[in-house]
C-alpha cells in the first residue's frame, strides 16, 4: 500500500476514533472526580487485611497476584525470545569479545565516566536491594528495584569493559536469576496451595504494620520478582552487547565459512 493511501486509511480511522473517544469522554467523570469502587474499597480495607503500607504492592502481589504472575511470564517469555533471537545465526560465529567497533574509531572511556561509574555502582546496587526489600512498605518493589539493580550492571560496562561486565555476571548467572525468580513466584503460589488449598494464598502471619517482616508473603514475591527482573534486564543487555562485541559474520572465504556452508 502506498504512503498516500495509508494516510487516507489512517485519517478515516482517526476520525472514527475521535468520535468514539468524545462519546466515551462524555460519560466519564471529570478528571479528579474519581468514584471507582475497587480502589475506594481497597484504600479502606487493605491496610487492615494485609498490613502492607504500600497498597500498590498489596494489589500487585496479593489481590492481583495471579494476574501479576501472568505478566511476569510475559516478561520471562520476552527475555527468552531475545536470547533465542540473538544467538549466533547459521552464518555467524562467536569470537573473543572486542570492545571496539571494527568499522569505525571509538573514543576510549573518559576518566570522569570511569570514576563516576565505579563510585556510583555500590550505592546503586544497595539502593536496588533497598527498593526491592521495602516494596511492601514504601513506593517500590520487585519490578522497580530489579530495574535499578540491572542499572548497576550497565554502569560496570560503561565504566569498564565488556569483560568487567561478564566478571560480575559470570557464566549463566543472569539466566539463572531470571529462571529462579520466575520459578520462585510459582513456588510461593504452590506453598499457598499446600498451606490452605488456595493458590497464592497469603498464609504467613502478617506481622506488625510498617516493619520489614510484615505483609506475609508479599516481601517474598517481591524478592523473586526483583530477581527475575534484574536477571532478565541484564540478560537483554548482555545479548544486545554480544551482538556487536562477540557475534561475527563468518568470513565466507575462510575454512570456517566453508564448513558452515557445507553444513547448511
Amino acid at each position, binding site marked *: 500500500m502506498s504512503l498516500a493511501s495509508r494516510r487516507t486509511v489512517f485519517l478515516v480511522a482517526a476520525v472514527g476514533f475521535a468520535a468514539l473517544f468524545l462519546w466515551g469522554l462524555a460519560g466519564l467523570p471529570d478528571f479528579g472526580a474519581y468514584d*471507582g469502587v475497587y480502589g475506594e474499597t481497597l484504600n479502606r480495607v487493605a491496610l487492615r487485611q494485609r498490613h502492607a503500607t504500600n497498597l*500498590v504492592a498489596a494489589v500487585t502481589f496479593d489481590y492481583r497476584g495471579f494476574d501479576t504472575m501472568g505478566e511476569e511470564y510475559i516478561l520471562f517469555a520476552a527475555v527468552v525470545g531475545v536470547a533465542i533471537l540473538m544467538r549466533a545465526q547459521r552464518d555467524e560465529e562467536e569470537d573473543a569479545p572486542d570492545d571496539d567497533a571494527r568499522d569505525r574509531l571509538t573514543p576510549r572511556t573518559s576518566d570522569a565516566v570511569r570514576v563516576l561509574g565505579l563510585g556510583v555502582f555500590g550505592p546503586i546496587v544497595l539502593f536496588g536491594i533497598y527498593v526491592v526489600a521495602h516494596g511492601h512498605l514504601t513506593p517500590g*518493589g520487585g519490578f522497580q528495584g530489579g530495574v535499578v539493580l540491572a542499572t548497576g550492571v550497565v554502569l560496570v560496562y560503561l565504566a569498564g569493559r565488556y569483560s568487567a561486565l561478564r566478571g560480575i555476571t559470570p557464566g549463566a548467572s543472569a539466566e539463572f536469576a531470571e529462571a529462579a525468580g520466575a520459578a520462585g513466584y510459582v513456588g510461593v503460589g504452590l506453598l499457598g496451595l499446600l498451606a490452605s488449598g488456595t493458590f497464592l494464598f497469603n498464609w504467613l502471619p502478617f506481622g506488625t504494620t510498617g516493619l520489614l517482616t510484615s505483609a506475609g508473603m508479599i516481601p517474598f514475591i517481591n524478592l523473586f520478582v526483583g530477581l527475575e527482573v534484574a536477571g532478565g534486564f541484564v540478560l*537483554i543487555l548482555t545479548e544486545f552487547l554480544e551482538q556487536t562485541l562477540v557475534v561475527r559474520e563468518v568470513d565466507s572465504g575462510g575454512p570456517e565459512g566453508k564448513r558452515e556452508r557445507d553444513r547448511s
Partner: protein
Amino acid sequence: MSFAPFAVAAWLFVIGLYGIVTSRHLIHLVICLSVVQSSTYVLLLAIGYRTGAAAPIFVDTKPGAPAVDPVVQALTLTDVVVGATVSALLLALAVQVHKASGTFDPDELDTLRG
C-alpha cells in the same frame, strides 16, 4: 481543563498510531508502539486520580484518608517493565531482519526468504 489528561492520552495514542502506519524504519516503528502503549498509562492514571488525594501509601496517613486508586497504578507499574522487555524483543527482531535483508524499511520487506 478537567479533561486535559484524557486528551493527552488520546493524542499519544493517535500520534503513535500515525507513526506506525507511516513508518519507514523498523526501529522507529518499535518506538512508536511504545508511544501508543504509554497512552494507556496516562489514561489509567488519569482515571484513578482524585483531586487533593494522596498516594496510596499509608505510612504516615491513616487508613480511610483520601487516596488515589491503587489498582490502576498496579496495572501501570507492571506494564511499564513488561513493555520494556517486549520492546527489546521487537528490537532483537529488527536486528535480525536487518542482518537477513540489509534493510530496516518495512516497505522493502515484501518477500519471504528462507
